[in-house]
């Protein structure tokens, strides 16, 4: 016999899908900074201590600006943000203009499996506020490791992946696709809620 679990607990943990949009919690601990996105996400923001996937068709569609408000908020409260193997050089002036405090930004150079290892170490350590990574060939197992590491270290994890990966299932708690034409966000999956059908326009 299983243990008796209060229904409220399950609902609050968002492990049971209710089939209808629940009442939104007033403000999350990790708002995305985009009101329209916050409104449709189950927790009112990024899923905490979990992996979020950002799927982009190509570089330059606004995928960094999606995170900048969050990174600005984290670095302002002296939380470290680590970029593991970023594909290009972060242009400091642009990041500063977005409000990111560069003193709290760390870059890790690695490739292939080392990059996944480094991302996992950073997530697991619990000494980072957010870890961004760009896995090249991430299989289901690698993503699950990142997800578990994010849970262990109570850290926000973001993985940028190509849009084609949307076809495969993923253990990430949240999957957002960034479209270029028209500029919009589509929430493909959000744990604990129903993914909204309508896309969210992304201002350019």
């Amino acid at each position, binding site marked *: 016999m299983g243990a008796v679990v209060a229904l409220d607990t399950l609902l609050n943990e968002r492990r049971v899908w209710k089939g209808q949009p629940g009442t939104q919690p007033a403000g999350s601990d990790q708002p995305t900074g985009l009101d329209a996105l916050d409104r449709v996400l189950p927790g009112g923001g990024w899923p905490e201590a979990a992996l979020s996937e950002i799927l982009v*068709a*190509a*570089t*330059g*569609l*606004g*995928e*960094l*600006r999606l995170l*900048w408000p969050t990174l600005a908020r984290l670095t302002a409260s002296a939380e*470290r943000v680590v970029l593991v193997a*970023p*594909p*290009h*050089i*972060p*242009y*400091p*002036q*642009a*990041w*500063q*203009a*977005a409000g990111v405090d*560069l*003193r709290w*930004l*760390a*870059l*890790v*150079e*690695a490739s292939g499996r*080392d990059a996944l*290892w*480094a991302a996992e*170490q*950073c997530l*697991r*350590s*619990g*000494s*980072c506020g957010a870890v961004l990574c760009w896995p090249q060939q991430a299989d289901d197992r690698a993503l699950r490791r990142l997800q578990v590491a994010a849970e*262990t*270290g*109570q850290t926000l994890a973001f993985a940028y992946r190509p849009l084609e990966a949307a076809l495969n299932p993923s253990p990430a708690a949240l999957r957002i696709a960034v*479209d*270029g*034409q*028209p*500029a919009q966000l589509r929430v493909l999956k959000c744990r604990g809620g129903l993914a909204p059908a309508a896309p969210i326009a992304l201002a*350019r």
Partner: protein
Amino acid sequence: MRWACILLPQLALDGVLRAHPDPEAPLALVSGTPQRRVLRALNPAAKALGLRPGQSLSAAHALTRDFALVEHDPAQIERWEQLLAAWAYGFSSQVSLRYPRCLLLEVESSFALFGPWPRFEARLRRELAALGFRHRIVAAPNPVAARMLANACDGLAVTSQEELRDALGRLPVDRAGLDRDAATAFVRMGLRNLGQVLALPRDTLARRFPAEVLRHLDSLLGERPLALECYRPPDEFDLRIELNFEVESHQALLFPLRRLTADLAAFLASRDSGVQRFSLHLEHRDLADTLVPVGLLSAEREAAMLFELARGRLEQLQVPAPVRAFRLQARDLPAFVPERRELFDERPQQSLPWEQLRERLRARLGDAAVHGLAARADHRPERAWQLDGASPSPPLPSGATRPGWLLREPLVLRDGSVRILAGPERIESGWWDGADLRRDYYLVQTRCGQRGWAFRAVGGEGPLLLHGWFA
């Protein structure tokens, strides 16, 4: 009670065994000329085979050949003594190596720090056992008495002068450190223990024996102070482990590495310093030593962390030839500043501080793999950023926006694949340092909606070069 004597009866054997992968297997230390090799010391397993110290090697081989042989090395013993003195220095500022295979340390002034003697003694024994050295500990009001009582006892703690007289009185004459002739003479006179000697009239002793005998008795009773030379810790750490066989994989080096880093940590703790940089030397038969430098960003001294970092470096290494000896050298020993921890930490219990995480990443990925980013006051995009900026300069006031990503190498854009949305913004700079740059930058959009930052040299006609993404 002021002085403690830590006697190390099997220093040579312990020193060998603690670096040995299988200390339970029969092992013997041998010394002597090539013609006559003699067993010096044996571990219990070897004794169980019927071997005895003092036996000649040929006699031992007649009994059995199932034991390992290690050459007795006096230089090695001195190294262990130095290491242990460094360790003891963590407990007392007065440590002496006056007697061989023995540490003398003044303990009374350390009671405030390490608690009363029984607790202090327990701690000494615990740490010695962890370091792998068998020992006898005796405390007495003066160093000579402590040393001589350790010949016969273990765990004795004498506090007062009367007790000392009592304890010395029971000490057999031949173990009291008297010179051999005098001791034999006393025994022949029927004097078995030191009490009987001390009961003799002083002037008769003075008449019949050399002056050293009386002097020694006086120092035993503490009536004649002994000038001890105190140990001064060296300013660098250098320890070498000779491997008993040639090692080809770094896996097999992990065991000696754990020993070396633990010794280094003990040494650092005693000096109250940390280590910023150390190097591992792998000694080969014919080749020059392989050097594995381990650099840390901040001074550390925790054994587990030092091991972890050194291991990360070692695992990266391709060993070019079999390794015969392994050595750890640390010269840079700055003062240790304990890391600051938040009182109310929101993170989970197992959280690893950023400094340690950074070290772990650097150990596996290389020293340059982890860095920060800073803006530089320069209009040229290539020079607008720097890694690990010591003093980030304030960004230049610029009306124009900059892209979030800057490409390392500008990329040629095919004609017609992009639409120019805005521009040009002219960047003209660098005439003073030779890296002259005159470019017109445009905000461009590709067919699928990507926004890029592309340039063309001023007056040039060629294709646009993509330099960044407004991601």
